[in-house]
C-alpha cells in the first residue's frame, strides 16, 4: 500500500456515510435528502474500492460498477416520483408529506 493505510480510507468512507445519514435526517427538501443517499452510496463504493485495492482484486470494482448502475436507475425513478409529488402538492418539503399516519 502506497503510504496511505487501508484504515484511513475506511474511516473516510465511514465519515462520508455518516454525513449522508445526517443529511437524510437534517434536510427538509426531498431532493437534498435524495442527494444524501447518493453520499451514502459513494461511501460504500469507496469502501469496496479500498478493500479491492487491498486484496489486489477487481471484484470490488465490479460491485462498485453495479452500485453505480443502480444509483443511476434509482435517480431516474426517484426523481420522477419526486416530480409527481411536486405536481400534486406543490411542495418538496418532506415534512409536508405526512397525510398518511397513525
Amino acid at each position: 500500500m502506497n503510504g496511505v493505510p487501508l484504515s484511513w480510507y475506511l474511516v473516510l468512507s465511514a465519515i462520508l456515510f455518516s454525513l449522508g445519514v445526517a443529511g437524510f435526517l437534517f434536510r427538509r427538501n426531498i431532493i437534498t435528502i435524495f442527494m444524501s443517499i447518493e453520499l451514502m452510496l459513494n461511501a460504500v463504493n469507496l469502501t469496496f474500492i479500498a478493500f479491492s485495492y487491498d486484496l489486489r482484486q477487481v471484484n470490488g470494482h465490479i460491485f462498485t460498477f453495479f452500485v453505480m448502475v443502480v444509483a443511476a436507475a434509482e435517480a431516474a425513478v426517484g426523481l420522477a416520483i419526486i416530480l409527481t409529488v411536486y405536481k400534486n402538492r406543490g411542495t418538496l418539503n418532506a415534512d409536508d408529506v405526512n397525510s398518511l399516519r397513525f
Partner: protein
Amino acid sequence: MLDSFIPSWAELLRFMPEIILSLVGSLLVMLEPVTGPKSKSMLGHVAIAGLIVALGATFVAHANPGAAFSSMIVVDGFATFFRVIVFTVGILTIFSSYQYLDREGSNRGEYYALILFSVVGQSVMVVANELIMIFIGLEISSIATYVLAGFLRDDKRNNESAIKYFLLGSFATGFLLYGIALIYGATGTTDLGEVRQAVLQSAEPPVLLLSVAAGLMFIGLGFKVSGAPFQMWTPDVYQGAPTPVTAFMSAGPKAAAFAIFLRIFVTVFESVGDRWEPLIWASALASMTIGNFAALQQKNFKRLLAYSSIAHAGYVLVALTARSEIGTASAMFYLAAYALMNMGAFAVIAHVAGKGETTVDVSDFAGLGAKQPVTAALLTIFMLSLIGVPLTGGFFGKFYIFKAALESKLLWLAILGLLNSAVAAYYYLRVLVVMYMEEPSARTENLEPMPMSLQAALWLPAAGVLFLGIFPSAVLEFASASARLLGQ
C-alpha cells in the same frame, strides 16, 4: 475464453423462468401502444400466461438442480419453493388488479409489465448465490415496486406512499450495501458459498467485523421485511398504495426478502449466530408486539393489515431465531401460507374499496355477510387463517414456528409469541363481527357483483389456505428437505 461467454443449455434452463418473464414483460411494453383502451385486460392475460409458463419452467428447472453462470445462481429446493411463492403472488396480484385498474381508469400495460419485472427481481433474489445478484434482484424488485406504489400518479396517497417507500427504501439499502462491503472486506469474496467457506475455514475469523456486517445487513433486510425497529414505513406505504399493489408488496417482496434473509443468516452468518440471535429475538418480539397492539387501534382495514403484516414478520423472525432446519422450514411454510391469506384478504379490500378507495374502513365491511355471503365466507377463511385457527394454513404455520422455537429452547419467545397471537385474534375477529353482525353499510348495500377475475383471486388463495391447513405434509416435507440442503 470465448466459451465462458456462451452459457450451456443446462444453465439457461436453470434461469429459464426469469428469462421468460423478462421477455413477456418486454413484450407487454411493446404491445401497450398497439392495444386499444378497451382491450388492456388482454395484456394482463398475457402476463398471467407468462407467469404460468414461468411456473412450469420453475419445475423443469427444479428437475435440473445446480449452480449456473459461474455459480451466480443456484437452483435448489429453497429457490424453487420461493420462486413458486413469488410467481403465485404475481398471478394473484394480476387477477385482483383488473377490476381495480378499470375502476380507477388506469388499466395500462406498464402496470402488468412492472409487476412482471418486480417478480423477476424477486425471483433473481431467491435463486441468487452471489451478493451482487441479490443486490441487483433486490433493486429490480424495489424500483418496480416504488413505481407501482405510486402508480395512480394523480392520487395524493399514492404519491406519498411511493416517495416514502422510495426514500426510506434507498436509505435502508445504503446500510445493506455497507454490510456487503464489510463482508467483502472480511472475506475477499461476495460469493455466498465462498464467503461461507472462508468463514468456516479460518482459524481466527474476524468476529467483530462479521458481526458488524451482520448487523448492517440486518438493518437493510429488517427494513425490507418490516421487522421492528425498522417497520415504521409499512403502515403508511401499505395504506397509500393501490390495494392490489399493497397485496403484492405484503407478499412477494416480503417473501423474497425473507428468502435472502434466511439464505444469508443461516448459511453465511451461522458461525456468528450466537451474536445475532439475541438481536433477532428482540426484533421478533418487538415486531409481534408493536404490530398486534397497533393493529388493535386501527379503523382502516388496509392499515390494520399493514400492522398485522408487521406482526407476522415477527412470527417468521421467531422461526429465524430458532436457527435450525425446522426453523427454516417453518419460516418457509409460514411465508407460503401468509402470502396466500394476505393476498386473499387484500383482494376483498380491493373489491369493497370503491373508486378512489373511499371505503376501506373496517366499518365499511358491515353487512358483507348478508349482501355477498360468498365473499364474506372467503374473507372469513383468510381472517381465521391469520388468527391461526386449526384447519387453515395459518394454524400450521404458527404451530411449526412455535414448535421450532421450543425445540431450540426459546421457551419465553414461544410463550410471548403465543400470547401475542391470542391478542391478535381480537382485531381479526372484529372484522368478522362487523361483517356478519352489523347492519349493511352504505357501501355494502350497493356493492357491485364480483367479477370473475377477482373471484379467481379469492378462490385460489382460499383453496390454498385450506389445503395447507388440511394437508400440510407435502409442502412441509418439501420445505424441510430444502432447508436441510441449504444448511449443508
